């Protein structure tokens, strides 16, 4: 029987609205009690959390561990340890692996590797179509039974509207939420940055906001028709957020996330052809960034993710157009989130809700809350600890970050996954 006692921390659990200095008692991978010590609870590993924040472990709806298929960039072992070091206890992994996560066997492989590693939980999202080809439906019931929490376009939008409609209908039949990344494939073709004045100056092909809104418009029309649960990933524009806001007002069963880097960077960050700021969807204008901040502040968008995409050095080395998009984000997710709190966008509890209970709720995961009976996935962090982003010291194998040398505040000291304790304070 393993017991852990977290003593004297500030417990912030957005799910229950708790924000108080108290103790947490963990037994056999579950939260046994909060506040009062249960009878006979002794022999526990004691963690002194005085002056620190204790919150549910973070749930990241978009993180690519690169396994199977791209282990030269990262693997499940390296990334699930990096996640734990960053206070993230659940990673939802998109299906654009190699081979594509379109059969139960790939999902089982991922589960097995995650279990062998024994760090963060990895929940695969199955592919919506076979090989992400946008034409043939996957065996969604089998994927669900193999532990997939959702089906997803894996960042490759389904072009054919009829196929998408059928996929939504079939997923709804199997009671699976659908994850879509809204981007019109024609409007975004060959594009690598936002279609704005920086793209014009640098002579790069841009991706207009209309790529996002056109796709969102179609997808929302289908949701209204079909009634499937849809989670939109990586919104990037003010107009996109406005569409989503309207859809929620119309009571459509939709939710959405924004990648955390979108709150801090704009198209200006690519102005020196910096490949580390090359992301999809692209960094847009300051007005878009501010609209995204507003959207998480007022709850129109309720999930924030890392959009973690670790890369090897070669993938980011070259003229911008020839480099692969994506940011290695596990190491910086929590500290950037805390910066949003610092900058007055949200209070701490609302900010933590965006990475705990809200993403869990969006996909129906048993995670993201900290109350008796809940899985003991817990993050403890020092909210005042200042650190500097040094790519070489990042725990992820991917060192591709545009936040090099940023001064951030807030560092994870302990993480518990299913009651297993990871001390991350020795850095």
């Amino acid at each position, binding site marked *: 029987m393993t017991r852990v006692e977290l003593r004297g921390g500030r417990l912030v659990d957005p799910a229950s609205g708790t924000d108080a200095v108290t103790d947490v008692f963990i037994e056999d991978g579950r939260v046994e009690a909060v506040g009062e010590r249960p009878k006979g609870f002794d022999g526990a590993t004691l963690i002194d959390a005085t002056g620190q924040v204790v919150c549910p472990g973070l749930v990241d709806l978009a993180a690519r561990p690169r396994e199977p298929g791209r282990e030269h960039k990262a693997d499940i072992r390296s990334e699930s340890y990096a996640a734990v070091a960053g206070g993230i206890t659940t990673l939802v992994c998109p299906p654009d692996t190699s081979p594509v996560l379109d059969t139960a066997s790939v999902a089982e492989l991922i589960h097995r590797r995650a279990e062998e590693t024994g760090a963060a939980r990895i929940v695969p999202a199955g592919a919506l179509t076979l090989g992400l080809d946008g034409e043939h439906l996957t065996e969604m019931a089998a994927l669900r039974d193999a532990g997939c929490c959702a089906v997803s376009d894996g960042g490759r939008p389904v072009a054919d509207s009829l196929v998408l409609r059928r996929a939504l209908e079939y997923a709804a039949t199997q009671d699976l939420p659908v994850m879509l990344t809204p981007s019109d494939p024609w409007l975004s073709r060959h594009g690598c940055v936002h279609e704005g004045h920086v793209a014009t100056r640098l*002579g790069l092909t841009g991706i207009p906001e209309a790529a996002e809104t056109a796709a969102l418009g179609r997808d929302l029309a289908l949701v209204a028709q079909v009634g499937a649960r849809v989670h939109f990933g990586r919104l990037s524009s003010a107009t996109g957020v406005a569409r989503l806001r309207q859809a929620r007002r119309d009571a459509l069963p939709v939710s959405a996330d924004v990648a955390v880097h979108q709150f801090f960077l704009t198209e200006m960050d690519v102005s020196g052809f910096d490949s580390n700021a090359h992301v999809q969807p692209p960094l847009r204008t300051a007005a878009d960034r501010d609209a995204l901040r507003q959207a998480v502040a007022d709850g129109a968008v309720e999930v924030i993710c890392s959009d973690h995409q670790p890369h090897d050095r070669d993938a980011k080395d070259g*003229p911008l*157009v020839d480099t692969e998009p994506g940011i290695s984000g596990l190491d910086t997710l929590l500290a950037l989130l805390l910066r949003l709190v610092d900058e007055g966008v949200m209070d701490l509890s609302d900010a933590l809700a965006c990475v705990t209970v809200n993403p869990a709720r969006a996909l129906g995961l048993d995670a993201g809350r900290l109350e008796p009976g809940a899985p003991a996935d817990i993050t403890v962090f020092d909210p005042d600890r200042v650190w500097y982003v040094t790519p070489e010291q990042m725990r992820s194998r991917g060192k591709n970050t545009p936040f090099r040398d940023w001064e951030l505040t807030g560092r994870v000291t302990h993480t518990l996954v299913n009651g297993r304790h990871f001390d991350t304070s020795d850095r």
Partner: protein
Amino acid sequence: MTLQLDDKGELRHFLTTEGVPRALLTRILDTAESFSAVIEKSVKKVPLLRGRTVVNLFFEASTRTRTTFELAAKRLSADVLNVNVATTAVKGESLLDMLRNLEAMQADMFVVRHAESGTAEYIARHVREGVAVLNAGDGQHAHPTQAMLDAFTIRKEKGDFEPLRVAIVGDILHSRVARSQIHALNGLGVGEVRVIAPRTLLPRHVETLGVQVYHDMERGLADVDVIIMLRLQRERMAGALLPSEHEYYRLYGLTERKLRFAKPDAIVMHPGPINRGVEIDSAVADGPQSVILRQVTNGIAVRMAVMSMTLGAYRQQREDEEEGA
């Protein structure tokens, strides 16, 4: 762009005309002026770059631009190496590996042309200290020596930049030449730079580059002193950017009739190679107002200027002369 300037504000590389101070742009033109005298002599050589090695690294086929760079380097007495990259790249060698190999052959300068925007900057960030990089065209981003030779031609033909109105006509969207011209001409203080094109051939927010936008030749060419026609690639018809060559020529092709919208003494320029009957009528291209062939001649002097300035040779000679005097 500080990458291309050293801490004294001198050219270390020449990657873009954007953000280059007017004094330095003017000095490039003045230096080119002194070299154009050399070119007209019977012995067309100066020993400024003797013993130096210039590598022409062309990832895109280009006979004309490569030839003028080669000629410029030879007139400066440099050794020139032309690397046929199209075939090397097929072997899967990375850009950086190729660069290291060429550097190991003691190259002093790379003249780079590449189909992707930002390549020249990328290479400039990775070469050894003291090795210069000249951008001979990167994607749709910049072609600074072309812009400077155009500015040089304008100054020769028209004198002061301040009172001039310059119109750039055609496919601005895909044109590295247009972008570099706009920055160079604005940097040199040209009174007004205009672009004339249908909206499909203009990049978004093009006005932020510092130009007046026109969609109509009659209004756009009114009172203009310089007309720069851009080449229209035939593949633009395929991308739904234009309906047909025929309609493009009817609306934007420079004919003698449309030329009359401009000032009577306006000059006509074109970076070449020209598509007769697509963007320009032969009668105009070969007509009295055309300075297209003079642009080519001026290109050699301008490239000699930039080559000698980036390798510090010109500065060195000037300093030596001053000491001697």
